[in-house]
C-alpha cells in the first residue's frame, strides 16, 4: 500500500483519502446519524417556595420546540444565549439558590433538556429578566400552558413554572429539527467514486506526460 502511495502525486493521494473518509462518515451517518425530531417529558415537584425551571438548549441543531406545561399556576418563558451549564452559572451570579440540576442530552437530536429547581422569591421573574425578555403565558386551557418557539443553535429556551400549592408540574416537549439536510448514501457513493476516478485519470495523465517529456 505504502509503495502505491509513494508513486502517487499529493493531489491524487488526497482525493483517494478524502473519498474514503467521505464513505466512512456517510456509513456512520446512515447507521447512527442525526434524527430529525425528539420527545421528552418530565415530572418535577414544586411548591410556593420552590419554582421549577426547564432549559431546552439547542446545542448543535435548530428547530421548533413545542412545550406543554401541566399543573403550574404561572408560567413564563424567555430565550437566552448559551447552554444550560452557562445558565446555571448565570443563575448563581444573580444570587438565585439553584438545586437539583438534572440534564438529559439527546446527542442525535442536538438538544439537551435540563430541569432546575430555584428557590422562589417575589423577585425571581425580575431577576431572570436580566437574562432576557421574560414573556408570561396568559392563555391556559384546563390548567395546561402551551409554548411554541423556534430556537437556534447555541441558544436556549427557558421555562419558569410556579405553583401556589405543593404538587407536581409536568412538562411534555416535542422538538422538530429544521433546515437540516445531508447527502444520501447513494449520492455519497457516486461522489466518492467520482473522486477516485479523478485521481486515477490524473495519475494516468501525469505518467503519460512524464513519459513523453
Amino acid at each position, binding site marked *: 500500500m505504502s509503495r502505491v502511495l509513494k508513486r502517487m502525486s499529493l493531489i491524487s493521494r488526497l482525493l483517494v483519502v478524502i473519498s474514503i473518509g467521505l464513505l466512512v462518515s456517510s456509513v456512520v*451517518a446512515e447507521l447512527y446519524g442525526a434524527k430529525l425530531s425528539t420527545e421528552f417529558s418530565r415530572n418535577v415537584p414544586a411548591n410556593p417556595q420552590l419554582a421549577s425551571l426547564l432549559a431546552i438548549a439547542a446545542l*448543535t441543531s435548530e428547530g421548533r420546540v413545542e412545550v406543554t406545561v401541566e399543573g403550574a399556576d404561572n408560567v413564563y418563558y424567555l430565550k437566552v444565549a448559551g447552554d444550560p451549564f452557562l445558565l446555571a452559572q448565570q443563575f448563581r451570579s444573580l444570587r438565585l439558590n439553584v438545586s437539583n440540576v438534572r440534564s438529559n442530552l439527546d446527542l442525535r437530536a442536538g438538544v439537551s433538556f435540563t430541569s432546575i429547581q430555584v428557590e422562589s422569591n417575589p423577585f425571581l421573574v425580575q431577576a431572570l429578566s436580566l437574562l432576557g425578555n421574560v414573556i408570561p403565558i396568559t392563555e391556559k386551557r384546563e390548567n395546561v400552558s402551551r409554548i411554541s418557539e423556534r430556537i437556534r443553535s447555541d441558544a436556549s429556551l427557558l421555562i419558569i413554572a410556579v405553583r401556589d400549592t405543593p404538587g407536581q408540574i409536568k412538562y411534555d416537549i416535542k422538538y422538530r429539527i429544521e433546515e437540516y439536510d445531508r447527502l444520501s448514501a447513494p449520492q455519497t457513493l457516486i461522489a466518492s467514486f467520482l473522486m477516485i476516478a479523478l485521481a486515477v485519470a490524473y495519475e494516468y495523465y501525469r505518467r503519460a506526460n512524464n513519459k513523453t517529456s
Partner: protein
Amino acid sequence: MSLRTYYNILYVDVSDVLRPPGLDVLILLVAALGSALVTIQPVTSPVVATRIALDPTLFAAALFLAVRGSAGMAYLIQSGIVNVYLTYPIGKVPLAVLLIISRVFVPSLIVLAAPLVILTLLLSSVMLKGPEKALGLYLGFFFQASLYGLLFLLFALRSRSQSTSGLLSVSAYFAYVALALILQAIGRSIDNELVRKVGDAMYLPEMVYSSYMRGGVETWQILFVPTIVVFLFVLIVWYFSRRFEVV
C-alpha cells in the same frame, strides 16, 4: 535567482514533509472521524459544524507539526540537508520563509482542510448557508496550528536534535493549553476580567466561534494569536539568518 529555484526548494521540502503513508493515514483518520462526529448530530450551522470537526483535528495537526515539522527540521539540520539548501543561490531570509511555509503553513492548511472538504460535500446545504463563516473559523484554526508549528520549529532550530525538539514541542503544546485553562480559571475565581480574557484569547478558534455565535469578543482578543504568529515568524527568520552559515 529565479522563481524556479524557490519553487524547487519548496517542492522538495513539501514532498518530504507530506510523504506517505504518515500524512495519508492521519488525514484519513481525522477527516473520517471529524466529519463522522458532525454527522451523528443534526448540525444546522456551518460554524458549529466546522468547530466540531476541526477541534479534534487541531490536536492531530499539532502532533503532525511536532513530528514532521519540528523533528523533521532537526533531522534536516543533523543530516546536513540544510547546508545543501544554503548552497543554493538564494538568500537565507527567503530560505527561512520557504522552510516555514513547507514545514508549518502547508501541512496545517492541508490537515485542517480535509475534514472541511468532506463536510462541504456531505452537508452542502448546511455549509453553504455561510461559507465565509466556515472559512473564517478555518482560518482561526489555521492560525492556532501555525502558532504551535512555529513554536515547535523554533525549538528544532535551537536544539538541532530530533528527540529534544520532539519532546520540547509536545511539552510546549500541553503547557500552552494548560496555561490558557489556568488563566481562565484564575480569572474567574479572582473575578479578574483581563486575566480571563487573556486566557480565552489564547485559543483563537473559540474567539472566532464566539464572535459569530454570541458576540462580545474584543478586537485585541481576535488579534492575540495572529500577533504571536507574526512575532514567531519574524523571530525564526531572524534566528535562521543569523545562526545558520554555509559550512
